């Protein structure tokens, strides 16, 4: 497979990362090299193999739906970039 400049721009956009026009060629070259390495996976036939998503085949633990944490929003918000009236501040989204 071959990556293109527009692929790189599209995935950067999806990942909320800016790549300027000076960097895009270099990024493309590096990613293409890495994908050449990744492509070597295709040499093995895996048509009958079940995917393995995790090292241990354990089931998701469940717990009672009850409050276990004390309210610590003051502590947690003390390290936030911008807070007002106990709310995290971000640029206005709705006009």
């Amino acid at each position: 497979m071959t990556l293109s400049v527009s692929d790189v721009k599209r995935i950067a956009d999806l990942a909320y990362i800016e790549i300027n026009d000076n960097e895009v060629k270099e990024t493309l070259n590096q990613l293409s090299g890495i994908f050449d390495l990744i492509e070597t996976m295709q040499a093995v036939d895996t048509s009958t193999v079940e995917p393995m998503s995790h090292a241990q085949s354990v089931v998701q633990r469940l717990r009672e739906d009850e409050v276990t944490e004390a309210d610590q929003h003051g502590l947690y918000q003390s390290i936030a970039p911008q807070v007002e009236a106990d709310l995290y501040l971000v640029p206005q989204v709705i006009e």
Partner: protein
Amino acid sequence: MFNASLKQLSIQLAEKKISSTELTTEFLQRIKQFNPEYNAFITVNEEISLAQAKVADKMLATGQAGPLTGIPIAQKDIFCARGWLTTCGSKMLSNFVSPYDAGVIERFNQAGAINIGKTNMDEFAMGSSNETSYFGMVKNPWDIAAVPGGSSGGAACAVAARLAPAATGTDTGGSIRQPAALCGISGIKPTYGLVSRYGMIAFASSLDQGGPMAKSAEDLALLLNVMIGFDPRDSTSLQHDAEDCAQDLQKPLAGLRIGLPKEYFAEGMSQDVASAIEKALVEYRKLGAQTIEVSLPNAPLSIPVYYVLAPAEASSNLSRFDGVRYGYRAPAYSDLADMYRKTRTQGFGAEVKRRILIGTYVLSHGYYDAYYIKAQKLRRLIAQDFTEAYKRCDIIMGPTTPTVAFNLGEKSGDPIQMYLSDIYTSAANLTGMPAMSIPIGFGDKNRPIGLHIMGNYFKEAQMLNIAHQYQLVTDWHLKSPV
């Protein structure tokens, strides 16, 4: 005192020959003296460390001490520690003072251990040379022209240079074992799920596992006994019966079957590493072990599989860094999307961005099956290879790394060459099986070489036994660059 084993330190403390305050002060002094050159620590906080030492001295005085009470431990800067700057080696978290303790930190605190400082690391644990840290590269104390390995490079350097008696690390593709090998110390990545990931900043959640780094296998056993344990706050934490990791240390090795994977001995290993491995195997045969050839046909695909799965999980995990709730926020932006974009572009370094892009691509529409699912299928084949091999042998050995430590700057411009330095280590993360590295000599330019010891699930005690028996008849683990 700084060359003493954890057991020796523990005895000295118990017998009141030294206090924890004195011991902590000695290591803080060493850090002050040597850290400007090595850059092994990102944060040192004498006030907190000495306050902990005072508490430990009380525990020691009142007979409440355990084996690690009063002993300073260097904590990798990936573990959240309340009141400590916790950066994960990134500009993104360069102002993040953690409001809570990681599970691992809690356990060390309960044991009365001292947090002697937060160690340098590759940014978000992505790297094999410690050169991607926002806080600068770490030097290898054996040769300051060489990398210490990564991502737990600060931890490996700190132990090797005797700036701390022991340290914690984390291992997603080799990040405990590779720097341990390159710095001539011992390190173990336990079975996935034994050490809590709560408060351990996530890189690739299905592969990440914390573990100890120290001078010897005996020290590792004491540390693992503190680190292992069920934590309900980590959804993949295992409810495994507690076991004393030191229980088998003294067992003789007669009859031990060591598997040597032909794929790991075929090519790629440098001559100095090959001859050190051969010498180590001679020692093991003298100890009564026998070696047999085994095959891991899919193991050579570990690196491509790893570089699909780890970036995929990383791109998801690192989406939380958006400049809203904690960490870095860009100073100027036009709207919300621009704030996310500028924050992430400025807050992440080049290697982290590269992996986020790879992960985003392999998870994107139309490529998910071809890359992500394909890699997960190969992950199963790799795990099956090991399960098959363990029917014929008790343990697998090989090199931890293909060469001794490379020079600073040698591979930093070539991501693929950097990735290949984890060629022998990443399989254990894919399978979730335990693996460790111990020092077995020196190679090119007198730089250290590590032996990779891989075991089946939950075989930590046996692996530590195998490493300890070697360390009883050799002295590589006692060598230090200082």
